[in-house]
């Protein structure tokens, strides 16, 4: 870690490292294999103050910034990317989102339980035919009396099967940007969790569809103004992309560490693998890319904390680290040779998990579009 950390951040890193080692690493392979979910970890995160990392203390939060949230993702991501993804969905997509955009009454009502670990949260934006084109979402919310009735299907929702409540986007008017945000509790009439999805990687982070059939949402659960959600959707995507880059860093860092140790331990042709230049080259390359990714990511996090809301820095960090993580994990498998291909070793899981980083929170292509749009000054 080359980035200059404050004393407090160093302390946090230590806490995270211990937690990851004792609570995440021990379960990582099992929840990957069985598509499980490390619920115990969430309880502990609550006690450690991680679940409301960016939220104010009055709601039980830790009042830290984007740098610390990213640090949490990196350190936890080193041990178990799946649980970290679920953590991101909870702490950033749900808690941070409400913290930034919800009313005082909503925050008082919902945040404390989410932050203590009593309740689990998620966020529902994506739909079967609205992924990259998030503004194309079709779930409708119609006002009836003092309620909204929501109808539609969300998909790829992290924590879907286990979450108690969701921050959910729905269409409230006919214009492209007429989108509003709602807080949905899982017990609301007309809400149900759809099929659980089976995935290549991040298998220990449950993903499902959400189905809304005239789901009754009290009007006080509308977040912000009607038709006013596009701006906070974008704002939250920005911090999501910076912090999720932390998970990529974690995966890449574990890939590098595992492969380096292995190369030192294994002999072929009477020599250590670490003596082969081709192996040395890969390791050197991996570590250079990793440190470059770290520098960019924490630069983006620092700018965010200083109030810069330009989306392109986060997009660059996300794009670079996602590609870097997949490459690092593939290289780690290659350095382990046949062993790397076996489930007994963790690197094949790193690789399956890393691939998601190129898709979730906006695909590589979408990141490039965001960056190019800014530089080339075009609109779509």
């Amino acid at each position, binding site marked *: 870690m080359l980035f200059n950390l404050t004393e407090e951040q160093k302390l946090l890193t230590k806490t995270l490292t211990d937690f990851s080692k004792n609570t995440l690493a021990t379960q990582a392979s099992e929840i990957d294999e069985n598509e499980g979910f490390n619920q115990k970890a969430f309880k502990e995160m609550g006690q450690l103050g991680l679940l409301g990392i960016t939220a104010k203390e009055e709601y039980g939060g830790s009042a830290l910034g984007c740098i610390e949230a990213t640090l949490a993702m990196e350190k936890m991501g080193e041990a178990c990317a799946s649980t970290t993804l679920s953590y991101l969905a909870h702490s950033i997509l749900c808690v941070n989102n409400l913290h930034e955009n919800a009313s005082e009454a909503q925050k008082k009502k919902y945040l404390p339980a989410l932050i203590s670990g009593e309740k689990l949260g998620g966020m529902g934006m994506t739909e079967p035919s609205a992924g990259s084109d998030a503004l194309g979402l079709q779930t409708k919310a119609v006002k009836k009396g003092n309620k909204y009735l929501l109808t539609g299907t969300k998909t790829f929702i992290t924590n879907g099967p286990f979450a108690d409540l969701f921050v959910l986007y729905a269409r409230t008017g006919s214009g492209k940007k007429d989108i509003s945000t709602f807080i949905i509790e899982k017990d609301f009439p007309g809400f149900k969790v759809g099929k659980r999805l089976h995935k*290549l990687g991040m298998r220990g982070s449950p993903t499902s569809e959400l189905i809304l059939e005239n789901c009754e949402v009290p009007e006080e659960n509308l977040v912000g103004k009607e038709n006013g959600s596009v701006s906070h959707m974008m704002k939250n995507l920005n911090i999501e992309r910076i912090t999720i880059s932390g998970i990529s860093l974690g995966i890449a860092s574990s890939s590098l560490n595992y492969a380096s140790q292995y190369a030192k331990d294994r*002999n072929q*042709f009477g020599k250590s693998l670490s003596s082969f230049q081709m192996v040395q080259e890969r390791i050197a390359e991996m570590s250079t890319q990793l440190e470059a990714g770290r520098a960019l990511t924490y630069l983006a996090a620092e700018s965010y904390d200083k109030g810069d809301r330009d989306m392109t820095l986060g997009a660059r960090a996300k794009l670079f680290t996602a590609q870097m993580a997949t490459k690092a994990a593939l290289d780690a498998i290659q350095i382990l040779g*046949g062993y790397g*291909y076996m*489930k007994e070793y963790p690197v*094949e899981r790193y690789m399956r998990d890393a*691939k998601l980083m190129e898709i979730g929170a906006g695909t590589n*292509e979408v990141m490039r579009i965001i960056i190019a749009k800014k530089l080339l000054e075009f609109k779509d």
Partner: protein
Amino acid sequence: MEFFPELMGEILSRSLQARELSEKLIRPTIAKDDETSRFPREIFESFGKAGIVGQLLPKEFSGSGDSFSSYYPSIDEVAQASVCFAVVIGVTNLVMGGILKYGNPEQKKNYLPKLAQGEWLGAFSLSEPNAGSDASGLSLQARKVDKGYRLTGTKCWCSNAGYADLYLVMGRTSPDKKKGITSFLVKKDTPGFKVGKHEHKLGLKSSSLGELIFEDCFVPDADVLGKEGQGFEVALSQLESGRIGIATCGLGAATRSLDVIFPIRAKMKDPETGSDGVLDSLSEYYARLLALKSLMHTTIQLKDAGKSKAVLASSLKLLATDLAMEVSSFALGNLPLEKQAERIELERIFRDSKALQIVEGTNQIQKVVIAREMEKQK
């Protein structure tokens, strides 16, 4: 996509047959077989009966007497449906190839027809926990006794373990690193021989991979393949065919990935400008694929003419498997998520492709070979 039909003449019919059979037999169950790690033995038998497994063997051993120019493109077709299944056919061919070249008349008569017809499945076991890239560092002990040898030790990562009927196994008969290795043909029910743990792996899941355990296992002299001390030569004799085989699987994987992703992305391009970054990349992958198919064509023509070159097989293996990895990864990342069936298939190709960069000599080892060959040319 066809190999180069204009250049193939009559032998094209073998590829077409392989394609048809793969579409009909493999494709319907491959997703399920991959998910449940099931090896479809009955499909292998059908490929045997159809003459695809044993096509390289002469007719007298129930083969089809085909050329390499016919064999590899047909394996490419199989790989387009299942990389894993193509690898299984390839492994059985390594065993048949070894027996054809080094076997005595009895061995050929007893074993080749059964393997060629798909009645028997073959396995090739060289690797050990401490002898992977450094294959001649193997230590499975083979002690000479009256009328045969006694084998003791453990082999690892043997493809087809548990399903195979005949195992070609390399053991150590003397300390000399390369000349102290001998090849044995071990039948599945031989006392003292058993299959150890089965590996769970990232890909190639519809075939098995396991440990072989030998506990004072007696193998009669009649089942030594070649002479004592000739075992590493036997293994090396199949290396070139094996590498071209794995390269073929890589081309099949790349071809299929492109076939899946291209039509989907072509529909998404900007109708006015026709421009699309993803299509640009796909065009480049297609260009690389064509170049490799033509390198493949040259390589197998030379092989049929008895003028093989190690540098060609290694170059092909390196480039084709790297291409498979890149294209499948790219295709997967650029697939709209609602395309579920395509997603399952591309994920499988992506996981399978990674194995291709490791087996038959890792891609780093191919570079070592290429450098050595370049040096020789100077």
